């Protein structure tokens, strides 16, 4: 099916750098985040969390807490409907433990009280008797024979024999004859790689205000990446119809995939329902680390064959991911994307998900792809070293392009990988000299992108200004981009358009803000909503001029007569048409509802220069450049911001970030002091090169840019470190002790 949405045109507003509408609010504190919402008579919630990695709950005694006059509601898992579908049941089970706790920090009892202090005092009065069970927090431990079973009955029916009951999901992808492919290789390298679980590291902890009325109607305000999905989940969990729950998203202080599900919202709603008063619930940073979803950790075995002139003849990988104490589908995009940047005649990936005593994973930018591609790109780099080949030339030789049968099945149409590689090759960064103890690494990256269900409403106000209502929280500058697309299409100045984010009862459904979908899908819907409004404005002008509506065209924000019988009327501006609209038929608006398909895959290439201190193993990133295909950069600042942000998070993932568990299975570093994300002083200026290979599935050619940028940094940095110290690094994060140990093990 050919996509034909894109039409080449000259833009006036697209591609410019307009001021963001939320900037002043955010720097002055006027913006309202999840924790800023209050209501009269509000109660404060607190959660008692388990101090064990794995334990049966023998009994819960809340009587002393309930005896406190300040305590207005107590909630346990027994308050929730059981027997929901597996996916939804897992969501609420991850929020509050049923029969046993599955990870350190798992919620057990929630309290709503008249003050935070009273709620905390009440928690101390709750008696929970546990039967501590053996635990497994590492992949190897959970896969081992005799490992404790995290949840019985969850073994996947596709999991092959020989894997234990913790294995919930299995997948295989690929094509071609591996044996024949490897037989053509001059060198085959097999390696095993490990990545740690990392947190999305959003600065704003989860927060919400829930208010359930005695009539069974409810309101929920929360920080989320998808208010509609929150409504769907919470309505099912609480047992109410969706229309009776209105969810309003706040400003969001970062999400990166971690706010695509719920962790506290159903608890707050149930507390409110029981107390009959609004309930505010916020997480501490400690709770965010312990009881929300980091990404998966991974062990990946990779085997790749290459000829001495750099042609990859075959590749295979076996991925083991753990996504916490629940089934997890992140292995699928991991296995699909591992070799996606290469044109291979023989490729196979297999993957298994194993449950562990860790919190339920949540999506994190391009979920599953960074760790898989890290492993593949590391071995490709080592093969380049083996043959003395330029790693960028080898990528150019093997890059997927139009007509390539991808490693996950479909044949690629027009894609931007070759263009990004050529841009990297031509960039002065690639040939800049390096000093002692310095090295350069590169990696390609890939992400699928998608569109999804989207509704947009565009109103032409009587004064000629424009209001756009969309339904996705603004996590990356989407309001400005959407306003720009509306202004471009209507032919009005950018500052005449204001875009707001609707609550769930004010606009049709919108999928979660994920898959790098918003600028693509909401942009597409906005453009079509504007076109619908233009059509109506042309009809109004035709009526005023008493000519056929087909004789009216829209140019530069004006209705104009066109055609032989249209007459010689003066063009009518949008403002004039808007002002006259009460007289010509009433308010003018445009709508568009779509399940947007055809998002277009995205590729990127990262170059990294760094220096390793041989005395300490400390790594300093010296120079970093991101090359990425954006299809069309609506607002270059925000595209660059996505590219830089992904690179920054990837640098943290590669060098420092990890969940560290003690022998007791408890998380040891639940705070930013011990969980080390990069700060500004850790990073160089991250340079960006935006390529624009239009996506035929979008009227302006847009591709999603939010996720691909976190994929290449892991391998780019690991390759640079490996080349610098002369040892192939196989584990992330490459914290100084690990690098120092690698240097010493090699006798360097």
């Amino acid at each position, binding site marked *: 099916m050919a996509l034909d949405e894109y039409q080449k045109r000259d833009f006036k507003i697209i591609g410019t750098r307009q001021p963001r509408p939320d900037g002043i609010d955010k720097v002055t504190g006027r913006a309202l985040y999840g924790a800023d919402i209050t209501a009269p008579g509000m109660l404060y919630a607190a959660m008692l969390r388990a101090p064990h990695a794995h334990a049966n709950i023998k009994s819960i005694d809340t009587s002393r807490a309930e005896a406190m006059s300040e305590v207005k509601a107590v909630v346990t898992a027994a308050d929730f409907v059981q027997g929901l579908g597996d996916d939804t049941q897992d969501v609420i089970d991850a929020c509050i433990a049923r029969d046993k706790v599955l990870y350190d920090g798992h919620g057990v009892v929630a309290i709503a009280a008249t003050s935070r202090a009273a709620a905390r005092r009440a928690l101390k009065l709750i008696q929970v008797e546990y039967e501590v069970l053996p635990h497994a927090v590492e992949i190897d431990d959970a896969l081992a024979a005799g490992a404790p079973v995290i949840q019985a009955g969850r073994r996947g029916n596709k999991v092959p024999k020989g894997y234990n009951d913790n294995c919930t999901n299995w997948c295989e992808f690929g094509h071609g004859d591996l044996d024949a492919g490897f037989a053509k290789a001059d060198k085959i390298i097999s390696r095993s790689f490990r990545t740690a679980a990392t947190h999305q590291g959003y600065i704003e902890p989860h927060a919400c205000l829930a208010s359930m009325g005695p009539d069974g109607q409810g309101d929920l305000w929360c920080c989320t990446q998808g208010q509609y999905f929150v409504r769907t989940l919470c309505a099912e969990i609480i047992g109410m119809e969706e229309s009776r729950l209105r969810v309003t998203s706040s400003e969001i202080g970062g999400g990166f995939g971690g706010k695509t599900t719920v962790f506290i919202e159903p608890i707050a709603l149930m507390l409110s329902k029981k107390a009959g008063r609004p309930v505010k619930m916020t997480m501490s940073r400690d709770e965010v680390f312990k009881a929300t979803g980091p990404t998966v950790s991974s062990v990946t075995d990779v085997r790749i064959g290459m000829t001495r002139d750099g042609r990859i003849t075959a590749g295979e990988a076996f991925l083991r991911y753990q996504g916490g104490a629940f089934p997890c589908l992140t292995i699928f995009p991991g296995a699909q994307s591992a070799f996606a940047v290469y044109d291979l005649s023989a490729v196979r990936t297999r993957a298994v998900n194993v449950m562990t005593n860790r919190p339920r994973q949540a999506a994190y930018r391009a979920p599953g792809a960074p760790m898989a591609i890290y492993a593949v790109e590391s071995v490709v780099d080592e093969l380049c070293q083996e043959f003395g080949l330029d790693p960028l030339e080898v990528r150019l030789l093997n890059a997927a392009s139009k007509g390539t049968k991808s490693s996950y099945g479909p*044949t690629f149409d027009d894609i931007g990988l070759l263009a990004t590689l050529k841009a990297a090759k031509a960039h002065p960064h690639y040939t800049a000299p390096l000093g002692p103890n310095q090295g350069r690494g590169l990696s390609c990256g890939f992400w699928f992108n998608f569109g999804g269900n989207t509704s947009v409403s565009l109103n032409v106000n009587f004064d000629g200004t424009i209001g756009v209502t969309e339904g996705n929280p603004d996590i990356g500058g989407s309001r400005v981009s959407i306003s720009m697309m509306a202004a471009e299409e209507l032919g009005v100045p950018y500052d005449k358009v204001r875009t707001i984010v609707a609550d769930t009862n004010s606009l049709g459904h919108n999928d979660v803000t994920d898959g790098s979908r918003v600028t693509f899908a909401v942009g597409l819907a906005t453009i079509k909503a504007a076109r619908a409004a233009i059509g109506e404005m042309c009809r109004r002008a035709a009526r005023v001029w008493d000519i056929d509506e087909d004789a009216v065209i829209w140019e530069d924000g004006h209705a104009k007569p066109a055609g032989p019988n249209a007459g010689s009327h003066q063009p009518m501006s949008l403002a004039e048409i808007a002002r006259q609209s009460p007289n010509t038929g009433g308010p003018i608006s445009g709508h568009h509802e779509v399940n947007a398909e055809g998002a277009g895959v995205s590729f990127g290439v990262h170059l990294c220069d760094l220096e390793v201190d041989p005395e300490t193993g400390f790594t300093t990133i010296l120079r970093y450049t991101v090359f990425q295909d954006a299809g069309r950069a609506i607002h270059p600042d925000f595209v660059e911001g996505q590219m830089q942000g992904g690179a920054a998070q990837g640098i943290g993932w590669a060098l420092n970030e990890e969940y560290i568990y003690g022998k007791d299975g408890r998380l040891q570093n639940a705070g930013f002091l011990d969980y080390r994300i990069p700060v500004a002083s850790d990073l160089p200026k991250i340079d960006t090169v935006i390529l624009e290979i239009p996506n035929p599935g979008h009227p302006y050619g847009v591709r999603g840019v939010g996720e691909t940028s976190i994929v290449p940094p892991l391998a780019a940095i690991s390759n640079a470190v490996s080349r610098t110290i002369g040892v192939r690094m196989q584990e992330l994060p490459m914290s100084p002790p690990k690098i120092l140990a690698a240097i010493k093990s090699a006798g360097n």
Partner: protein
Amino acid sequence: MVKVSIWGSLRSATDGMAEVEVKAKNFREVLEALKRDYPGLGPEIDRGVSLAIDGVIIRESWFTPVQADSEVILMPYMQGG
């Protein structure tokens, strides 16, 4: 008839075949035909799958047309972050 590629771990439901043929002219009919002809695929399809049709990943749109010569790949339902 439309040829549909089946990813590796689902081939146990298609007697090991990597590619099957079904009678269908759109997304919905492909999935209905797969469930009818290969009941073992039913649970996976009901949980949610995508189809890549001539290189374009379609997640849900029932009436997306497929032609007899279309490249149709059964894929997991795509989710992101």
